[in-house]
């Protein structure tokens, strides 16, 4: 005690205490989103120079069809991965939802019914995943590997090697229609959904709880967060978005086969990881995921315009993923 009182005049009054330890401008410039945006701009410019067909309103509009459906799923998947869970069954949910819509068409369902069936199936599948993960406390990767086979298996049983077609004409609007000039319904829906997801994740208590669970589930539970409830809602949301994607994709293809959307779960997860969401959970942003979705669309379409074979595209996306993830780490190491 005495040592404290014997201390010379306290310098505390002269010391400036900053409001926050990081410099907001500096951190914004160095953020993942800025880096991604830079990459997107570079790819855009390169594309414009590389192909005379790129800078055309309709080309750019067609480009968005390459990613909108997957990106809708990626929005919900981002929340799920931030909370430390994952859903590998999303593409299979699309297959099952599309198959059930096709089945309904055979008995003469109209467009609103079809949309309800598609979205409802997605929601039900998501809830099923949610119950298995939160109720039975099973690891989500195991559960959704199982339901991935289950959901697609069901559509194979219903369809075999057959096809459902004959969707009503006005059903085609969702995947082929435009709301204004070159802005497709799919793109508009994605942008609206992105704003909603941004608000939920970054501006609501629910969003804070997702981060809390992802960072330390036990601590979150002791802080009064209903972990199981939040996770269940996130699985339902992922299922719901898969159901919406199923409506869009089925409408765009005008037919259903059980192989529909094969491999999309990995593309959606790639968008999420490329968007800066930590695969271990606890960190990430919706803006990053949105930019990542555009980057994937720009790269695949740009290389497609140059008729670069698909396998090169896969290599390019893989490299992009590694570069974008490694760059900040390399930067930090170089600074030391």
């Amino acid at each position, binding site marked *: 005690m005495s040592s404290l009182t014997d201390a010379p005049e306290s310098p505390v009054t002269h010391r400036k205490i900053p409001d926050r330890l990081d410099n907001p401008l500096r951190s914004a410039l160095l953020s993942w989103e800025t880096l991604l945006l830079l990459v997107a701009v570079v790819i855009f410019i*390169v594309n414009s120079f590389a192909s005379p067909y790129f800078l055309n309103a309709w080309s750019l509009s067609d480009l968005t069809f390459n990613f909108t459906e997957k990106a809708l799923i990626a929005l919900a998947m981002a929340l799920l991965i931030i909370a430390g869970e994952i859903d590998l069954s999303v593409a299979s949910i699309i297959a099952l939802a599309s198959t059930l819509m096709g089945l309904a068409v055979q008995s003469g369902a109209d467009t609103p019914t079809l949309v309800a069936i598609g979205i409802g199936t997605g929601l039900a599948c998501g809830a099923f995943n949610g119950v298995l993960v939160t109720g039975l406390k099973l690891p989500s990767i195991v559960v959704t590997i199982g339901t991935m086979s289950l959901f697609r298996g069901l559509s194979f049983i219903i369809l075999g090697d057959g096809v459902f077609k004959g969707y009503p004409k006005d059903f085609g609007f969702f995947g082929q229609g435009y709301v204004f000039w070159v802005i497709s319904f799919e793109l508009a829906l994605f942008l609206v959904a992105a704003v909603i997801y941004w608000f939920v994740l970054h501006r609501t208590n629910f969003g804070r709880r997702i981060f809390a669970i992802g960072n330390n589930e036990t601590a979150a539970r002791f802080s009064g967060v209903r972990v199981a409830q939040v996770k269940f809602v996130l699985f339902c949301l992922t299922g719901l978005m898969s159901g919406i994607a199923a409506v869009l994709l089925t409408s765009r293809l005008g037919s259903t086969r059980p192989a529909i959307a094969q491999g999309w779960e990995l593309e959606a997860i790639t968008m999420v990881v490329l968007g800066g969401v930590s695969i271990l959970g606890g960190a990430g942003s919706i803006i990053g995921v949105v930019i990542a979705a555009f980057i994937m669309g720009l790269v695949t379409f740009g290389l497609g315009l140059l008729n670069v*074979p698909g396998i090169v595209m896969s290599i390019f996306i893989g490299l992009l993923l590694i570069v974008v993830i490694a760059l900040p780490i390399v930067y930090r190491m170089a600074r030391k």
Partner: protein
Amino acid sequence: MKLLKTIGIGSAVAAMALLAATGASFAQTRIAVVAKDIGNGFFVAAGKGAEEAAKELGDVEIIFTGPTEPTAEGQIEVINTLVAQQVNAIVISANDPDALVPALQKAKQRGITVVSFDSGVAAEGRDVQLDPSSIDLIGKTIVKLAADNLPDGKGKIAFLSGTATATNQNAWLAAAKEHYAEFPGVEVVSTVYGDDLFDKSYREAQGLIASFPDLAAISAPTSVGIVAAAQAVTDAGLIGKINVTGLGLPSEMAAHVKSGASKSFAIWNPIDLGYSATMIAYHLLKGEAKAEPGAEIAIGRVGKIVLDDNRSAAMSDPFTYDASNIDQFSSIF
């Protein structure tokens, strides 16, 4: 930040150089050939045929492309980029006859000629469909191949088919019957079914060999059955006595052709298929032919086709493979 910048600018410059180097020239007629998936030997061969047609036509540039995985979604992405490039024609083998229709209809609305080959597209999504061969031509071929190698054109033959319910094979066998009269020396003694399983086909072939000691040929209109039968004949030491023929893949049959177990067999020639589909697309987009029922379209060295009510046509007899050309094709598919 400096490092970031350097990496960023460096990669941008490199990417631009790379992309500029691969940049396509334009101004002439551009025909895109879309495979079911890239890296599939059958379509690589079809692409070669398309290049051959382009060389013959002179002012044509071939864009050979396709998705990484054989999916309809992947092909739609490819179609969208081709539409954006304003190619003159799309020649495609479809992963899904229905799912591609909306994307191809959009291409047609923008003035692009669409020809499907091999795996067709539903009629509303394309101008013309080119089948490699017809049921009738295949039926005739599977008898003819057996008859060709019979001593004095006389002898007993048997069919080893796939499953008893297979639509393709049953149609071919029925068509074959119509042509029996053209080969008076041939006596068809039996038709057995190996279910497209190797071991069942092998046992059925053994059964044929045991039941008909003077059997001269086995014709198997299935790529599984023909290999199994050739193996059974080889294992029984009857090479030279029983000739195995039918429909098979050159890569799987090369060894049996070399051993003499199979003197010849047939399958569609992917090079001719790519060549013909490209020729058709060219004549259509130049207005030299019309995509309507009954129209006759010339396809260069392969001959000509006549469109049926569905605007589809069969190219030719299946192509025969024997010791003279097996090496050339066995590396392709």
